[in-house]
């Protein structure tokens, strides 16, 4: 126990970021208990109210309770963040490892990845979403496609450099098959950097979803995503900023927590990674 405590003291960003994230996850899971009002309940008579005893964060243009919507909004952001991070890690690792070992696949894969990376994330997602209907799944798929090249680049780069290590050559000299080399020797040594990169991608995905929803290309307006809530509050923001302020605050805290966690993990594992990730 004391070892864990000493570790956290050395890397305060892990402690702070991790705790914040944990609290946000709790908030998302226990949303129905934290917010007593229904986030979808329309109540035109109470529209555009400033924060009060009854409506902690005020109400939006349709009379919905902003506090409830913000609390439930955490679910959307975290679901998007974690799902995209997981999917892009899995897909990216598979592609990256294959690419690092099969030369002709590598040639094609790298061109494709370079191409995808030269399209800014938002635009890529916009293109994908414009052609399909707006839904949570499509947003997740679109952002995943935009983030996969990052993972592929990292894993491929690591695979190429690890291949040259003497311990890998020793395994080959013992007669190890390429599968064994990849699974026992290469992959375990990519996990550290992969974890850090995945953490950052989680933050980027949450940011992307919020940005997309904000400009109207994200999840459907009925779903309370922080970006959506801000989009709905745009019209009146100069006089009633509460509709934008609260979701903005939570969004920023969430992304901050994740980035701090990512920074802390990176420094704890290998500070030299800061040059690459």
């Amino acid at each position, binding site marked *: 126990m004391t070892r864990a405590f000493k570790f956290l003291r050395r890397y305060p*960003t892990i402690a702070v970021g991790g705790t914040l994230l944990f609290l946000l996850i709790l908030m998302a899971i226990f949303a129905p208990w934290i917010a007593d009002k229904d986030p979808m309940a329309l109540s035109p008579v109470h529209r555009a109210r400033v924060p009060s005893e009854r409506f902690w964060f005020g109400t939006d243009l349709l009379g919905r309770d902003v506090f409830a919507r913000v609390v439930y909004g955490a679910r959307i952001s975290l679901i998007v963040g974690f799902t995209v991070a997981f999917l892009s890690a899995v897909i990216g690792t598979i592609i990256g490892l294959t690419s690092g070992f099969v030369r002709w696949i590598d040639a094609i894969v790298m*061109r*494709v990845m*370079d*191409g*995808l*990376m*030269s*399209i*800014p*994330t*938002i*635009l*890529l997602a*916009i*293109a*994908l*979403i*414009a*052609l*399909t209907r707006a839904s949570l799944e499509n947003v997740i798929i679109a952002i995943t496609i935009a983030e996969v090249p990052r993972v592929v680049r990292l894993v491929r780069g690591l695979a190429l450099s690890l291949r040259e290590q003497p311990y890998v050559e020793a395994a080959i000299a013992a007669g190890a098959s390429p599968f064994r080399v990849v699974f026992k020797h290469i992959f375990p040594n990519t996990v550290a950097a992969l974890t850090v990169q995945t953490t950052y991608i989680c*933050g980027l995905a949450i*940011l992307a979803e*919020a*940005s997309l929803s*904000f*400009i*109207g*290309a994200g999840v459907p307006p009925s779903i309370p995503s922080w970006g959506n809530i*801000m989009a709905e509050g745009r019209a009146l*923001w*100069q006089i009633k*900023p509460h509709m*934008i302020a609260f979701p*903005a605050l939570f*969004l*920023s805290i969430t*992304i*901050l927590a*994740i*980035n*701090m966690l990512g*920074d802390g993990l990176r420094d704890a594992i290998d500070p*030299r990674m*800061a*040059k690459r990730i």
Partner: protein
Amino acid sequence: MFAYTIRRLLLTLPVMLVVALFVYGLLDLAPGDPAVFLAGEEASLEDIARIRQTLGLDQPFYYRFSLWLFNVLQGDLGNSLFTGVPVSEMIVQRMAPTFTLMIMTLCVSVLIAIPLGALAAWRHNTSYDRGVMMVAVLSFSIPTFVVGYMLAWALGIEMRWLPVQGYVPYSQGFWNSIRTLILPTLALSSVYVALITRITRATLLETLSQDYIRTARSKGVGNQNILFKHALKNAAIPVITVIGSGVALLISGAVVTETVFSIPGLGRLTVDAILRRDYPIIQGVILLFSFLYVMVNLLIDLLYRVFDPRIKY
């Protein structure tokens, strides 16, 4: 050097091809009939058939694609589904504010971030370093549009120093025009500065621990020269690489920032196009920005040689 340039230039072609394939092929891959999609929501069966004919959608893919690509290379990006106006024309109309915003952001960010990151690396582990890193992670995490609203509130509404929305074209005065872009630039810079500061600091920290710095000190070289002459040049390459790849962030951020500040640039064009499902405009904007990104990174690639004589083609 010439061969190096040619080789790098040739290498960008497959990348642009992939982008073009993606942008064009997406229409085919998306669920539903492309003709129905492009004809719009109100179209009748005859309209759909007509669209299919004019755009040659019954032809095999490689044929259509080559034709479309050929047109694109000549500057013809198709017409807007909504207004019927050529996409290229609409883009040219809206280019100025977006590019001005991006260039301003680039300049401001680099000028602020590099000294900031360098100083943080030099004063490693002091409160200055920790302070800079804390501010960096904060501004990297707060989304651009949130920063935009914060700045707009503070400087535009409370203090009334700067206009909070709209854009004034150059024709009505250079300074007037720039004034409308100051807040958006600051908002967009927040993320870019954070990114560059972090990478500058990380790279410099590693550079300062290298053997040749120790050699320079053993010759009696003073601190200023160690930092500005010996270290900085060696740290340049990762930093300019990130400046180049960060342009993607810049573009994404511009789209969102223009929405916050109601600036009639390419970002707003794209956002409007989404709402109307005006796919040719989205296609055109993506092609333009990708091309820009690839060119910027090509330039950065060529700049490598200036900083590091070891780079051969």
